[in-house]
């Protein structure tokens, strides 16, 4: 069973000629089949956690370990992490002009699977997945994220999630900027992947809204660069009712 183990992770960024510590000792274990929601106020470091795990060059790891099935993730390049089974659905997916979605998906699937998918089954697989996400077939011929609406970008991220079948999926504010219909469609996509039982999901969100569609097993409150409280789904209900104020004002300090 695949497990992602984050131990005492410290991360800094360079901003305005100064080094700023964003993550201040994150501990978290996510196993295949589990869904963890990470909730927290803006600026708490949730997205930094997501991008650091994926290996974004902007972030410097200054301490701690991240292991995927015992392998040192922090030693891997960005593409190696993806091939090892980590997937990050991004909050702000990047435009890649001149590269079509279909070419991108196939290149990516070839890299992740280690061999080119058989054309006939691949075309069918892509078509069916796009249909289930209510994406028009013409989407495949557009350039990656170029001119996509916010909802289209998120659907495109979930399309990749479904096709690439990672061991660990990190969803960084996938719900932000979506209307209710789009949120439902995207959540259904995430749930299809979860139902396989083969993915561990790290759901990063500011709002409890998405948790009506994607039920977490564990809820963690993120504040000041670390997890300050963990619990079951009931913790989300508490946050819904009370907000983050208690955490932001230092009500819980470690």
């Amino acid at each position, binding site marked *: 069973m695949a497990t992602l183990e984050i131990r005492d992770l410290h991360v800094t960024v360079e901003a305005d000629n100064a080094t700023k510590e964003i993550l201040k000792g994150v501990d978290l274990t996510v196993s295949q089949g589990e869904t963890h929601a990470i909730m927290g106020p803006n600026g708490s470091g949730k997205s930094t956690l997501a991008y650091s795990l994926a290996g974004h060059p902007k972030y410097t790891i200054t301490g701690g370990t991240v292991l995927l099935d015992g392998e040192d993730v922090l030693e891997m390049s960005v593409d190696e992490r993806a091939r090892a089974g980590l997937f990050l659905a991004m909050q702000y997916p990047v*435009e*890649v*002009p001149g590269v079509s979605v279909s070419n991108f998906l196939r290149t990516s699937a070839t890299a992740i699977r280690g061999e080119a998918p058989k054309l006939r089954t691949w075309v069918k697989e892509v078509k069916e997945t796009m249909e289930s996400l209510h994406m028009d077939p013409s989407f495949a011929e557009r350039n990656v994220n170029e001119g996509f609406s916010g909802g289209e970008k998120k659907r495109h991220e979930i399309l990749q999630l479904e096709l690439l079948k990672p061991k660990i999926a990190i969803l960084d504010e996938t719900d932000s900027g979506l209307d209710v219909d789009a949120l439902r469609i995207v959540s259904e996509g995430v749930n299809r992947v979860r139902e396989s039982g083969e993915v561990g999901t790290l759901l990063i969100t500011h709002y409890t809204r998405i948790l009506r569609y994607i039920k977490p097993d564990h809820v963690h409150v993120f504040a000041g660069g670390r997890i300050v409280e963990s619990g079951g789904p009931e913790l989300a209900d508490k946050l819904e009712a009370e907000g983050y104020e208690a955490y932001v004002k230092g009500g819980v300090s470690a």
Partner: protein
Amino acid sequence: MAEAQNIPVGATTAGSIAVAAESTVATRMSAPPSFDVADFPVPHGREEEWRFTPLERLRGLHDGTAVANGGGVKVTVEAPEGVVVETVGRDDARPGRAGTPVDRVAAQAYSAFEQAGVVTVPKETVLTEPIRIAVHGEGGVAFGHQVIELGAFAEAVVVIDHTGDAVLAANVDYLLGDGAKLTVVSVQDWDEKSVHVAQHNALVGRDASFKSVVVTFGGDVVRLHPRVTYAGTGGDAELFGLYFTDKGQHQEHRLFVDHNAPHCKSNVVYKGALQGDDAHAVWIGDVLIEAKAEGTDTYEMNRNLVLTDGSRVDSVPNLEIETGEIVGAGHASATGRFDDEQLFYLMARGIPEHDARRLVVRGFFAELVQQIGVGDIEERLIAKIEEELEASVA
């Protein structure tokens, strides 16, 4: 996070944005067009039409110190049956008929050439195979003149391939009869020391179609001046260009479309990639719609993909309109960086860095390569782009 910051039209782009000086087609010229080199002062580098060009690297083509030394370049013409291939003297009427030199180097080339090549496709002759003109530098200095003439309703594809080591100044004339269709692919695949300065003059006949594809990879300095004028109504000109500017190279493409007849079309698309220190690409796109050119439809675009720091792009589109009775006129210029966010996104999907870069650059050029319509040239271009990218990764 976006890959391409859009640069306002008329801007000079070098990672930063600067607004280009106000100028018009006429004010760009320091002297009126002329066949006589003596009519042009020796440029000092501050003139509008020379300000981007490293004069000190032109090996004397601009100041009269470059002297033809015989055997500078070797020209070989391969033509299908039905095509007339000639070498003519200065007294022949055809060289210069398509256009007049607009700068000192073109005038120098005209004043100094001894023999011109003339390739004629007789009227109503439709070729199924391309005409291939190989221009191979043999290490010397040369002044050249080439004429390609298509009679009425003739159709041809011409590939002009520049390779080897040379210092070459040349004029190339394209004369299209009424209803003729000419596609010309000019490939600048020079060795790294070569200097090539040339003016291309197309005179597009009534209802004729001219397609020019300019592909520049090699050379130390390449400065080309593709120009189009119309001899009648209904002419159509498509000017496509692709360049890959490497470390230390200067590649300059200065286009001019003179809409001097009614109901003509022009479409200009130039795309370039740059990599390495002091790689410098210059694109000037001048379009003039004269008062009599009612019904004109024109568009021009330049896009640049900057792959590494240290390279520079100057992109200056310029549209001058003397009549409002037109179908359409537009231009665009954009310079984008291949940035780390793009690379991160592709790599985060398992794609290795090398493949990710290749994917983006191939994608950037693909649309243009498909426009060429000459199979072996398309393949060679894709291979050449791959080769350039291999070099950059290594």
